[in-house]
């Protein structure tokens, strides 16, 4: 009997089943923990550790979190640190990336290598020296110390990213703008930056996340409750074993903590469009 063949773009029922089964399992693995956390956050304290997915839904965990803990303060601390990291980090990375992309200067290659090499040290090694630097500048227990520390992580990476993006913007546009009367900063600000929107969006999101979820530096540099960032503050909900984590506070916090990151991503993805430079130059 002739073997049944399938037209291009069609597959056998068995292959189809296999592919879909794999996708379903993978999606379940990805989505389940998040769904579980969201559902758990609405369960009353007494039944929080049972396995029922939905059990007397209530908002009491949220009200407890917002009213009885420092959550809102930590939240605003985190927002401040993350936003400042984003602004300062992108400002430095974009200008540095532009300089490296467009100008030749002595030490350009070593500088690029330095950026890469700094990325290779784990935080555990850097934390002590950076701590002593911060303490020398009286920056311990300030948000500035975190912004600076996060920039050391984010700026080198983003500089590489943005340099690569700026390289794709034709230099002829710079020259056209120069002849039209712009200085170097004008070229950067009015021609190159608007065209680098996708690159900027990605790096901004990255710097935001760097600061938003970071625990190690925060736990080393901050020591009073009023300065804590979210990621560090939430640790107070996880006492040392054998005491169990405070699930009724952790789960609503985990839900709320994703909101700003989600918002930033929402605004960033709108700028992730291809072909911004299309039509500017031929070829």
């Amino acid at each position: 009997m002739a073997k049944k063949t399938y037209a291009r773009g069609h597959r056998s029922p068995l292959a189809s089943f296999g592919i879909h089964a794999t996708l379903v399992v993978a999606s379940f693995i990805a989505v389940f923990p998040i769904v579980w956390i969201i559902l758990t956050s609405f369960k009353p304290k007494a039944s929080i550790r049972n396995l029922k997915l939905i059990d007397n839904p209530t908002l009491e965990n949220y009200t407890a979190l917002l009213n009885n803990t420092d959550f809102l303060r930590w939240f605003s601390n985190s927002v401040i640190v993350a936003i400042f990291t984003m602004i300062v980090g992108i400002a430095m990375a974009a200008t540095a990336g532009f300089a490296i992309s467009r100008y030749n200067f002595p030490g350009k290659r070593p500088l690029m290598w330095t950026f890469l090499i700094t990325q290779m040290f784990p935080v555990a090694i850097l934390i002590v020296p950076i701590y002593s630097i911060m303490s020398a500048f009286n920056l311990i227990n300030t948000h500035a110390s975190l912004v600076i520390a996060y920039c050391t992580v984010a700026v080198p990476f983003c500089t590489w990213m943005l340099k690569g993006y700026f390289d794709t913007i034709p230099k002829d546009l710079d020259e056209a703008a120069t002849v039209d009367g712009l200085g170097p900063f004008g070229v950067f600000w009015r021609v190159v930056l608007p065209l680098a929107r996708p690159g900027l969006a990605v790096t901004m999101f990255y710097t935001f996340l760097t600061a938003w979820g970071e625990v190690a530096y925060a736990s080393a540099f901050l020591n009073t409750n009023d300065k804590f960032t979210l990621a560090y503050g939430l640790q107070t909900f996880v006492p040392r074993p054998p005491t169990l984590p405070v699930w009724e506070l952790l789960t609503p916090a985990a839900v709320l903590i994703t909101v700003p990151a989600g918002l930033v991503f929402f605004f960033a993805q709108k700028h992730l469009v291809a072909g911004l430079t299309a039509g500017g130059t031929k070829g």
Partner: protein
Amino acid sequence: MATVTFKDATRHYPGNPKPTIDKLNIDINDGELMVFVGPSGCGKSTSLRMLAGLEEVNGGQIFIGDRDVTNLSPKDRDVAMVFQNYALYPHMSVADNMGFALKIAGVAKDEIKKRVDEAAKILDLAPYLERKPKALSGGQRQRVAMGRAIVRSPQVFLMDEPLSNLDAKLRVQTRTQIASLQRRLGVTTLYVTHDQTEAMTMGDRVAVLKDGYLMQCDAPRYMYDHPNNVFVAGFIGSPAMNLLDLPVVDGGVKLGGYVVPVSREDLGGATHVTYGIRPEDMDLSTDGTGLELVVDVVEELGADAYIYGTAAGVNQIDTDGDGGSKPFLARVDGRRPPKRGETVHLKPKPNHSHVFNADSGQRLGK
């Protein structure tokens, strides 16, 4: 409006053994369309960029009018440039692209709009003013790039091979448009191209550059009839001039079995010269005298026909250095071309011969 003067202008890239532009001296008159032409790497674009201020000047001076602009930044030179690949701002509409320089200069919005509208009318861009460059065709983008220059009404237009990205038909069309537009606006223009046809058809004067040196600068017609040296003779004109290495004999130079009369004082005692004759400057002779040519290829173009052939004892000199041997070329009547394999006799028309020094390549005589 203004004149442009290159005075010993030199550009030497660090690390290069010799300058890319070596002591360029040239005067461009007020309102003139000057074309720089030459093979790639001759420095024509570099010299234009030096005038634009995009390239450093390492020696000498550049003047626009009486102003020494040698060390001025591009924005202070009052020049507008059309780039080879247009370099339109992709994130701005056509109108914004054209008005950008004025906006930077702080011109009032109404005035910008007025001037953009005027330029758009001249260039037939009015329906496209709100479009982004990516929604335009190649020819339209080219016109926007022109418009961006026109709107500024600068002292000098700089055009860096503005037609090389257009298809052949559009190129011919646009080239006449640019030339007539330039004449209408009367703005001094420096136009760079590698295409000698473009140079001949557009330029008030043409400057031929090679390896950073100015070879000749003259009106197209004069340059065609009086090339200063072998390089210009071979570069200007299409199809190219036949350039042959010929011995000097009594009464002239010996072209195969024929003696082309050249006066003794023109030859200046040389025993060998480079002899140049354009394909259209030869007649088929009926009396069996003249250069004997065996026809290899006949190209019939309708009005004309070109015959390619080999002639005994006559060798084309290798001007472009590619080592390939070149056939002898002549233009004949398109209605009665000889056949392939036929032997014909060609006679140079009187007073259309060009004689050059065999060593220096410089023109001998008038």
